[in-house]
């Protein structure tokens, strides 16, 4: 029995080769449809993965003040208040803000050197030591043509001339691309926030996280003269990221499914390429004794093979596009404000589920495009279809 199906498999493969024109058109259409889907999901997964990596490397709790429902600066005096709480290992102040360097928007982060992300690695130079020394992301250095010992100013505070002491790269390319790290004091002065931090990074003993978050949140309760404390645990941040990305991917997949459903009529027309000849051949095959189920099986296998060709081809092109050409042209549609040629390595992860989904899309499309017409031809009298 297996031999019978293997026979049909062979016939189907030979048909794909015999109908070269039709097969190439179908595969190219499928690749054109699947490529944006696979690429978008891969970039989304890459960004998600880097986000989660940053979360893992970060503090256990992020603490800010809440002013009018928005984050606001925390006075450094609060550190002492927090440090007394049982289970807290250390509290690190951080200044984080944005500023242009000419036309280039950068993120400036000020913190003690021992709180820098562990995945950060220096490509050149050393960590900042002296006043006004900074380290900058490799892609920022490339974009602005900056090197060790070069000086520059931030538009937000042109009076401070900053000097590049090191150039770094990070596993989290997307977040570190346009980043400038400075000492906490320098950053506080750049943004004119003396005695304040944008937020506090709280590191806790394992297992104390939730309880400490509760205690910190409750610190100013009942004191109407003190601002509200906003606390975000690592778990909460992780949850936000996961939820956000899952929702984005879900919406994207849903929209894509709708787009594909709309594209089906177009594909029906495309797959009609050579259908007149196909219809007549189905009539002949039927007339010489093939059964409808046998013809359907061969066409099903043909579609399966075309989908199995198109899906990995779309994956391969997407992979080459992202890894070799760094998402030239295509990445800008999925990551905002990165331009035609991204300055940093575009993050992308190819996960099995979206790949399976893309294969399923391809299969559904080819099936919808051909099975009905094949069935119609096969159940029509051969005397009619052969004409």
């Amino acid at each position, binding site marked *: 029995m297996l*031999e019978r199906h293997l026979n*049909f498999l062979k016939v189907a493969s030979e048909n794909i080769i015999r109908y070269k024109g039709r097969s190439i058109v179908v595969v190219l259409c499928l690749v054109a449809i699947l490529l944006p889907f696979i690429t978008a999901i891969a970039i989304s997964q890459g960004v998600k993965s880097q986000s989660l990596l940053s979360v893992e490397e970060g503090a256990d709790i992020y603490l800010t003040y809440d002013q009018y429902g928005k984050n606001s600066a925390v006075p450094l005096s609060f550190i002492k208040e927090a440090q007394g709480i049982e289970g807290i290992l250390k509290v690190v102040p951080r200044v984080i803000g944005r500023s242009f360097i000419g036309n280039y928007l950068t993120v400036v982060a000020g913190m003690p050197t021992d709180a820098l992300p562990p995945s950060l690695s220096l490509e050149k130079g050393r960590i900042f030591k002296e006043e006004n020394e900074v380290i900058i992301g490799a892609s920022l250095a490339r974009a602005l043509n900056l090197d060790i010992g070069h000086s520059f100013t931030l538009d937000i505070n042109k009076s401070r001339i900053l000097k590049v002491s090191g150039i770094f790269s990070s596993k989290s390319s997307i977040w570190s691309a346009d980043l400038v790290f400075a000492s906490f004091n320098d950053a506080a002065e750049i943004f004119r926030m003396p005695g304040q931090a944008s937020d506090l990074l709280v590191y806790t003993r394992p297992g104390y996280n939730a309880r400490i978050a509760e205690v910190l949140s409750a610190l100013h309760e009942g004191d109407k003269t003190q601002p509200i404390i906003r606390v975000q645990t690592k778990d909460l941040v992780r949850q936000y990221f996961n939820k956000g990305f899952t929702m984005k991917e879900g919406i994207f997949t849903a929209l894509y499914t709708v787009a594909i459903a709309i594209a089906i009529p177009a594909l029906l027309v495309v797959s009609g390429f050579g259908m007149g000849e196909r219809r007549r051949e189905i009539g*002949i095959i039927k007339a010489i*004794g*093939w059964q409808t189920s046998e013809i359907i099986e061969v066409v099903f296998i043909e579609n399966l093979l075309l989908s199995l060709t198109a899906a990995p081809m779309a994956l391969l092109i997407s992979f080459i596009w992202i890894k070799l050409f760094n998402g030239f042209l295509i990445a800008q549609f999925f990551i905002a404000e990165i331009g035609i040629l991204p300055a940093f390595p575009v993050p992308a992860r190819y996960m099995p589920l979206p790949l399976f989904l893309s294969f399923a899309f391809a299969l559904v499309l080819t099936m919808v495009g051909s099975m009905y017409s094949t069935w119609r031809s096969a159940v029509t*009298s051969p005397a009619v279809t052969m004409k």
Partner: protein
Amino acid sequence: MNTNNTVLKTEGLSKYYNPERPEEVRALRDVSIEINSRKITIISGPSGSGKTTLISILGAIDRPTGGHVFLHEEELTALSDEALALIRRNKIGFIFQDFNLLPRLSAWENVAYPLIPIVYKEKERKDRAVALLEMLGLGKRINHTSEEMSGGEQQRVSIARALVNNPEILIADEPSSNIDAKAIENLISILVDLKNKGMTIVLSTHDDAFYPYADVKINLKDGALIGIEHNNGGKI
């Protein structure tokens, strides 16, 4: 009269195209015939007399609008499409007027195509196809496609394909319409040879070159049966 030798039989057969419409065409009207085994039966008549329609119904390729068709005791008109396909696969070999070869396949692949669902080894299929092609004098053309062959050669490929499943009945629709005189002569000798080997042969033609070799000649006109002639040792 239904004799023991009857292989195919029709009763009150009719075929209307576009029935009950102004453009209705009555291709066959109340045709009742019997085809006997191991004989050459010719269905004859002028163009438009319903020969091709009748032969397509006898070959289980088309269905009638009314009446019945029997293959031995089995009523073909009552069978499903899938069962009819099995009849075409196992019992009837059909030679089409314009051959209907699959254009992208070689001669041997065309001949072997009906065997794909039933003979699983490609070598066996090829051996059977090549043996038939050699028997029909096409041993050197087995790898040629239909485009690379003459009309007569294409017809012989079509005959080989019709014979590949060892059918009980061979049916040919207007077999002389697309071939030259020499090929017709060749075809007649193949058909006579097959008849002598015990095959039942039915062909539609208005070419009188076939008449001397026919055992029975069924005459149609305007879709109706107008006469049956039997060859009793002489010519029809």
